[in-house]
């Protein structure tokens, strides 16, 4: 069964304190990995797609990286507005029309 595991479940950081969120997956033949941001009561907001090991994508204070077994979302000098749940998702094995989400990491940035 496809598995997407995110860690930590929750993370509290001081403003400006950089850190990384982890997403590990067991889908074989990975065809893409997605990162989303979700604010309370809202739908997931697309951030990045990574397609191959070694690939990196950046957006403002966020950088996503991918290896053959896991992905990291690095947050550099975060601000309170970066507080959200960050979700990782991968296409299901043999199905490109279905993505499976992890449980997410709840990130709270303290001012």
């Amino acid at each position, binding site marked *: 069964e496809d598995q997407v595991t995110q860690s930590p479940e929750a993370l509290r950081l001081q403003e400006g304190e950089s850190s990384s969120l982890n997403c590990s997956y067991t889908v074989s033949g990975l065809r893409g990995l997605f990162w989303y941001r979700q604010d309370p009561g*809202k*739908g*997931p*907001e*697309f951030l990045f*797609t990574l397609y191959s090991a070694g690939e990196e994508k950046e957006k403002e204070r966020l950088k996503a990286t991918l290896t053959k077994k896991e992905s990291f979302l690095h947050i550099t000098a975060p601000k309170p507005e970066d507080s959200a749940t960050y979700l990782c998702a991968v296409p299901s094995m043999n199905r490109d*029309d279905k993505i499976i*989400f992890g*449980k997410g990491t709840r990130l709270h940035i303290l001012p």
Partner: protein
Amino acid sequence: EPEVTQTPSHQVTQMGQEVILRCVPISNHLYFYWYRQILGQKVEFLVSFYNNEISEKSEIFDDQFSVERPDGSNFTLKIRSTKLEDSAMYFCASSENSLIGYTFGSGTRLTVV
């Protein structure tokens, strides 16, 4: 920026009643999806729709659920006889193709009482 629009934002219904959740996907997108999120749990796949038919569905998507694209712009999810456990946020999403990021709507909060 184009967005996926969902209505209503909140719906309260009695157990056993039928509900229809509505979505307007982004106009040039070809793939459409419904996901749900029970409070405090992860976002779960329900169904994908492409070329006017269901392309994949989960075990959650039983005979009580159906989807339709009635007029080329709207995409609806119908639950025929709601149960208490159907209470959740329901998200519609669309994409240009299946291997790029989906655009999600803001969701419909369904409460079954």
